[in-house]
């Protein structure tokens, strides 16, 4: 696979829905440690809705599909993470709006815009124990892979690996945003739930592209 077309994207959203279904309880548990525990529920809602939206998409532009998915997520899951992820898909989709088949370089543009969009909206940066700490390394990995002329499958695998490492790294960070911020020092040692969601999103892309 040298690029991701509309059908491949629809397949990716099928994986994303299934992954969020399967990880519902895990996310609830993670978010319960220092949040309100809603994350599993909202992510399931978000990607179920996105999946349905995407399957009904009749256009040709992949960027447009990703934008639409973002808008649907915003509507279905108006929580912090729901809105941030929606913002990511929208900003990412807009960045490659007219693209029909997504090359690795376009995928890296998409995830960079995805991550930056969330950083802008969340007024955050890497190191604050958020979704960004998985997303930013993933976007960086895609950028490197693209410069190095890797293929899409290899690129996305490197990004997924980077995201999982990013999740691990959040353990040593101190939360600065949301409910978790109230715990400050106590948040050290705990994995960030939002970063985990980012890794799951990369996983969906990885599995979809691999097929």
């Amino acid at each position, binding site marked *: 696979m040298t690029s991701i077309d509309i059908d491949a994207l629809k397949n990716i959203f099928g994986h994303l829905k299934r992954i969020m279904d399967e990880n519902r309880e895990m996310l609830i548990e993670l978010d319960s440690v220092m949040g309100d525990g809603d994350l599993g529920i909202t992510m399931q809602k978000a990607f179920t809705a996105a999946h349905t939206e995407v399957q009904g998409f009749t256009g040709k532009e992949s960027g447009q599909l990703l934008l639409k998915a973002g808008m649907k997520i915003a509507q279905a899951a108006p929580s912090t993470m729901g809105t941030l992820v929606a913002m990511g898909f*929208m900003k990412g989709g807009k960045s490659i709006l007219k693209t029909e088949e997504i090359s690795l370089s376009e995928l890296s543009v998409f995830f960079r815009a995805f991550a930056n969009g969330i950083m802008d909206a*969340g007024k955050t940066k890497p190191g604050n124990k958020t979704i960004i700490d998985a997303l930013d390394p993933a976007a960086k990995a895609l950028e490197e892979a693209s410069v190095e002329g890797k293929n899409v499958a290899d690129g996305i695998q490197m990004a997924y690996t980077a995201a999982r490492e990013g999740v691990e790294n959040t353990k040593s960070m101190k939360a600065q945003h949301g409910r978790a911020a109230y715990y400050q020092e106590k948040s050290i040692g705990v994995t960030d739930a939002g970063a985990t969601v980012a890794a799951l999103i990369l996983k969906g892309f990885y599995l979809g592209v691999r097929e």
Partner: protein
Amino acid sequence: MKKIMNKAEDFVDEMIEGILAANPGELATVADDLRCVVNKNKMAGKVGIATGGGSGHLPLFLGYVGDGMLDGCSVGGVFQSPSSVQMLEVTKAIDQGAGVLYIYGNYGGDILNFDMAAEMADVEGIRVEQVVAGEDVASGPKGEESKRRGVAGIFYVYKIAGAKAAELATLDEVKRVAAKAAANVRTMGVALSPCIVPEVGKPSFTLNEDEMEIGMGIHGEPGIRRGKLKPADGIVDEMLIPILDDLPYVRGDEVSVLINGLGATPKEELYIMYRWVGQVLAEKGIKVFKVYIGEFATSMEMAGASISLIKLDDELRDLLSKPAHTPFFEQKQL
């Protein structure tokens, strides 16, 4: 918890139902969503102004939807941001081709959702600009103004932007005066007792019988200092001096003053506060153009008050003086 309500989970929706029922000619909802409130009275070609925020602060936020003020408001749960989709629905309903200005307070959830709504509005082809009010000097030191929460002073931003929009000014012009108002307003508050979020059922903090907290936020965010309750003039000094020093407001300036009750504090006490505010300002050679006293941004039954000052120039004074009419705020031409 002593509240006149039915089920806690219906608190916000029933409140909105009551507001709509009491003002059938003035307010309407859009997108079949009770939480998306707009002014029925449309002025063709006008820039739309939208706000939004959590419930529990009446007349903030939807109370300022009306003629000469705001066109629409998305309403969140008590102390919770409304969703970006609700904001988008309001945006769509109030856009008349001239674009929409978002004016809201500097809170993470609201920013996130308004940014998102702006993004979605862009997809819909609606031009959106934003002005975020953050004027509570207690919530961020000088130099870190971007940390400051938006509190009662946002009233001035609404009033001034609303008056400009009513002149059929462009979106850029409305945004300019809103930003100018926001840059010239400062607020500080004091809390004497907590409030209770209906679905929570108990206060989020306690204050002893002889204590007050200077600088506390309207959701009970920690203030600068907790201490013994002082006489009114001393309480005023603790708020007014940091405000005056911040902009700063200096001899020869002209200001409008807003003394805002947080909920349980009677108007009698707000006027006792103003007595001293007026004396201090007179002594410092700061001229007072217009005084607003009452409840403009509350925290349900919290006791306490805030003082806001806005420095006026000819343009701001002129816009502040314009008439306005909403179900919660009425002003004739000053």
